[in-house]
């Protein structure tokens, strides 16, 4: 039986058709996957179902009746609930207050707390209603979102990339909860690009590409590769990895401990490891376990003990980012817009961020504008950045193109050590493959590459060795060869999963 049917939904934005004539349906008690690359139109589609965006054309039917939510309230009243990819949570408010905000007519706070405790017990999602959300781990935050939805007894639960921030054990726990909900008759629209997960969880899948429905399939009968090709529309090449050939340790980190400047951040505790020339080292871990802090400490944006970081035997713990760059340590932070690049500035100007000193894009402090333009053009050409011109602003580029630009800007400066956080987060598959290949080639050329990522598949694909960052502590590096996802999951503090 059909719960919700979408007919010919179309949504246009200036310059793009986000959704073009979308038609498919989700059955009652079905876990239905919505598959597609970044920018395929998944978010716009679910925002229409949730009432945040109104379609230009087309209609929806919920249990056979016309359904045109004009705002999220109407959608919630009709039985639609949604867990957002970037959680819609308020850090300075308590769990109970956060949940009350997502409900139409919340009961008094004591009754609500009781109900939270009950529901969280029933579905195995332990949670204390009085805690501040800012103090919770990412996995716990997701539970807040899910419980917020469950308290509304939804008919349709929309989940946007729910597992991208979870440990493998947390993913297993989540799937148990979701299957249980399905058995109770709740339909789930499950958005993801993780194909293995979809194979084990979902009964049907609808695939979107560039705003259009490409087809519907039964994931069990497909291979991950066949679904990926439907998603991307072409065959994908896996990055080629040549035989590893390591040199001497080039970056040494010794007992690096640092408090976080963010009140809800994670302190780094006694981090020690060596990165060798020619090595790609992966740092796995769930967001919020000290990744940002580690990145800032290594890049020099936050200074640490003089001795705690050594680059080719030089102590650089007290050196600023410029000094570290001149010595050959280059970085690419996670947040592309606003951290790795200035949104309002042109690509040419953005080369100055890390290239002014090392690329000598100036003399005695005066800017060499033609030099910056030439360097930007070189990046655009060699890293296949699609942009009308290097004078365009960074924010006008798509995520994948801007990431290629940022990575290219650092790699073309011949780093001795390159540290990158979430190199392919939110990037389309073709660009991701390109970036991974570039990282591998950089290591082949003799640089040490440290990749911090939450995407285990990515780390498995490119790393020579492997560490896990958990609650600000780092595990001993292990060779990546022969390691299983389950083993990594255990390293990620799997014992802590409730």
């Amino acid at each position, binding site marked *: 039986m059909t719960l919700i049917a979408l007919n010919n939904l179309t*949504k*246009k*934005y*200036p310059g793009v058709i986000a959704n073009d004539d979308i038609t498919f349906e989700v059955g009652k008690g079905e876990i239905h996957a919505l598959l597609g690359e970044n920018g395929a139109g998944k978010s716009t589609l679910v925002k229409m179902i949730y009432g945040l965006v*109104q379609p*230009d054309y087309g209609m929806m039917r919920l249990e056979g009746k016309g359904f045109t939510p004009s705002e999220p309230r109407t959608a919630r009243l009709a039985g639609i609930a949604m867990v957002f990819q970037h959680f819609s949570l308020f850090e300075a408010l308590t769990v109970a207050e956060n949940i009350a905000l997502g409900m139409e007519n919340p009961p008094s706070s004591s009754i609500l707390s009781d109900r939270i405790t009950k529901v969280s017990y029933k579905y195995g999602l332990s949670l204390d209603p009085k805690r501040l959300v800012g103090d919770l781990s990412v996995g716990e935050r997701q539970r807040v979102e899910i419980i917020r939805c469950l308290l509304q007894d939804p008919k349709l639960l929309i989940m946007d990339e729910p597992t991208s921030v979870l440990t493998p054990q947390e993913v297993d726990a989540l799937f148990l909860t979701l299957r249980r909900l399905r058995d109770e008759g709740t339909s789930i629209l499950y958005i993801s690009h993780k194909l293995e997960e979809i194979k084990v969880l979902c009964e049907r899948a609808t695939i979107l590409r560039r705003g259009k429905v490409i087809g519907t399939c039964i994931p069990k009968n497909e291979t991950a590769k066949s679904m990926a090709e439907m998603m991307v529309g072409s065959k994908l090449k896996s990055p080629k990895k040549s035989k590893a050939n390591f040199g001497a340790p080039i970056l040494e980190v010794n007992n690096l401990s640092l408090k976080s400047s963010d009140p809800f951040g994670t302190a780094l505790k006694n981090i020690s490891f060596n990165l060798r020339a020619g090595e790609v080292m992966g740092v796995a871990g769930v967001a919020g376990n000290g990744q940002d802090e580690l990145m800032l400490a290594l*890049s*020099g*944006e936050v200074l640490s003990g003089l001795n705690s970081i050594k680059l080719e035997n030089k102590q650089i713990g007290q050196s*600023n*980012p*410029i000094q570290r*760059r001149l010595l050959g340590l280059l*970085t690419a*932070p996670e*947040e592309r817009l*606003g*951290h*790795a*690049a*200035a*949104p*309002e*500035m042109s690509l040419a*100007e953005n080369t*100055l*961020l*890390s290239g*002014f000193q090392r690329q000598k894009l*100036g003399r005695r*402090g*005066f*800017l060499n504008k033609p030099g910056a333009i030439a360097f930007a053009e070189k990046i655009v050409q060699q890293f296949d950045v699609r942009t009308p011109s290097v004078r*365009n*602003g960074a*924010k*006008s580029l798509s995520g994948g193109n801007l990431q290629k630009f940022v990575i290219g800007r650092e790699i073309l400066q011949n780093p001795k050590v390159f540290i990158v956080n979430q190199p392919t987060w939110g990037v389309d598959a073709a660009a991701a493959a390109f970036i991974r290949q570039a990282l591998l080639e950089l290591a082949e050329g003799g640089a040490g590459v440290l990749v911090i990522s939450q995407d285990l598949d990515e780390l498995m694909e490119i790393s020579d060795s492997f560490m896990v960052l958990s609650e600000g502590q780092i595990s001993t590096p292990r060779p990546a060869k022969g390691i299983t996802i389950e083993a990594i999951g255990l390293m990620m503090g799997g014992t802590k999963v409730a």
Partner: protein
Amino acid sequence: MIRLEPRPDPSNIMIGLTPIFAVIATMIFGGMLFVFLGKNPVDAIRMIFWDPVFGEHAFYYRGQILVKAAPLIMIALGLSFGFRAGIWNIGAEGQFIMGAVIGGATGLALYPLDSFLVFPLMIVMGSIGGLLWALIPAYLKIKFNANEILVSLMLVYVAFNFLIGMVTGPLRNPDGFNFPESRSFQDFPSAHNPELWAGTGIHWGVLTTLGMVIFAYIAITRHIFGFNVRLAGQAPRAAKFAGVDPNKMIAICLGISGALAGMAGLFELTGPAGKLTTTFPVGYGFTAIIVAFLGRLHPIGILFAGLLLAITYVGGDIIQSQLSLPKASIQVFQGMLLFFLLAVDILVNFKIRIGKGISK
């Protein structure tokens, strides 16, 4: 339905046009204000904008315009760096006062020394006075995270009271019949900042201001310092990534604005004002905020904006005497100008779409 549609890149045409829109809107709504006050709006607008430059007595007013524009431009230039970097010094009035008091006191201490070094020394001391006064909020911001907006503003009141304390105490003119004012710098040739060519209004401060405009233009468009200032304002995290020390940025931006405001204060004191009195501060430090924004925080823009605001000051004097309107009406006029500028600013980053458009 009116919708805002983000532009992929800021519109350069609009950056230039919006200040003009703002001036036109101010003329229209300011005109309505004058109707409300029972005056002929066309006359009033003409007296404010036209008469100072092209009117019957313009030969006199033109000099006045330069005299008033110079401090406005000099202070606004200093403020523009901080405003670009997201560091809000709104206490330039206090730094202006402190520059005048410290620089003036230096000169008065040397009275009646006859040396060509006195005036340059006073300029230096005036700048240092403003600089140190501005470094107080900088230090408190860096060390204790105290909001520089509030601290710099509080220090205006402190500086004003300090000025009163000085002119009623140590700096009071010993030959001045106990009036709360200092010795006149017109009677102290080596400390005097005279009109260099009679009738032009040009004094050393005006020439220095012009030099500063060029200097600031080079710094902001050609030098890594200006680039870092812009970067810190647009994307603070990206600035840290690039290796810009935010604390240094705070100290430098506040320091520059303080030094320029202090220098402007000294030129004003030794030239047009002539002596320290309790009515010495006339609000240039606040009006300069309008000048900085109206000039789009760009040195050349500030040059024109400063001239325009100076015209309205002179025009304000004209309507005050000829239409017997209160002095405050021109203040309303200037406030309105800033309002309209901020309002039309949206055209730089957004397109306005009227009607149903393609979506919805």
